[in-house]
């Protein structure tokens, strides 16, 4: 009964509905984009009406927002946070800097394409994206979750070798605990 395809569909639908309606965002800002988050959360744009809410620790969080440029030093911390998060987990790349380096494309210390290091579900472009575009990015993520397309945690686990190679290219002194999920 439980392995029946149709009943599985219903279960998936309910699960995805709950996941999309309740997104706990990891309160961790990497660059200048973090300043847009208070504006998105507070009274003018009010992201909480979509069920978007801050979570203080990676254990409770669903969404990791990479807000703006990502220095190599920060990348190490981002990877640690990402690996501590529990599945299903989503990543939103925020601002031009996460897409192609933005104005820091020739900097010696910031990465240029985020999805080479951790899988990204949604990119929001702009420098900076306004709160409207942030909310539209979240809505896009909700659509992906409802369609069941946002399973990047699994992708990361399966292609861990490839991601690790890329990460170790940047982080030369790799002294990180191994997570076995």
């Amino acid at each position, binding site marked *: 009964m439980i392995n029946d395809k149709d009943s599985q569909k219903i279960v998936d639908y309910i699960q995805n509905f709950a996941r999309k309606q309740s997104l706990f965002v990891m309160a961790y800002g990497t660059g200048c984009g973090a300043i847009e988050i208070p504006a998105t959360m507070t009274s003018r744009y009010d992201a909480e009406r979509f069920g978007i809410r801050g979570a203080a620790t990676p254990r409770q969080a669903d969404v990791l927002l990479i807000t703006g440029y990502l220095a190599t030093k920060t990348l190490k911390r981002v990877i640690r946070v990402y690996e501590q998060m529990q599945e299903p987990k989503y990543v939103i790349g925020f601002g031009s800097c996460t897409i192609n380096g933005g104005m820091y494309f*020739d900097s010696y*210390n910031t990465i240029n394409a985020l999805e080479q290091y951790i899988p990204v579900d949604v990119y929001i472009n702009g420098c900076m994206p306004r709160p409207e575009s942030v909310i539209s990015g979240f809505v896009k993520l909700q659509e992906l979750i409802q369609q069941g397309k946002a399973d990047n945690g699994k992708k990361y686990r399966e292609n861990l070798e490839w991601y690790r190679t890329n990460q170790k290219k940047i982080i030369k002194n790799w002294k990180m605990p191994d997570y076995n999920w």
Partner: protein
Amino acid sequence: MTELIKEQHLLDSLTSAFKIKGRVIRDRRVEVFADKKMVSGILLFAKKQLGFIHLAHMTCIDWIDENKFELIYTIWSPIEKIHLFVKTKIERENPEMENIDSIWDQANTYEREIREMFGIQFPGLIGEQDFALEDWDEMPPMRKDFDTKKYALETYYQRPGREDAKDVRETISERSGTKVPDFAKKYSREK
């Protein structure tokens, strides 16, 4: 020049105490050019005798054409209300500078930053080798002969379509059909 009496007075007292050159830039701004070995003496003199008790800033400039590094110490007197710039030039090969964190404790932070970004050694400097960067084993990145774009292209993954990033001035001039002015050309990224 009647307004600049206190600045001129400061410059006179410095030049009479040390064999250095200097000039008054404008009101409340005085700069002196010192030899490498005299810097700590000047700073100590300014602090103890002239009331420049605050090290506001300390920075470094890479004059690659002259093959020199220039170190600039900005100190401030709350009584005279004057910024005094003490400037010195040191050789670019095996650069080394006297450590002044015995005069001002906060110099430690600036010196660590300069050591990391320019590779200038300060003997006796306390603190980790890493300041802002982590595990950096290339040439110090703020030196002019460090090609940051080349490094970024080699190290980080470029998104296709981004590598033709052009100078903003050229893009604007192409779009509007005007020429880039001559004075702006020397700042152009495309050589």
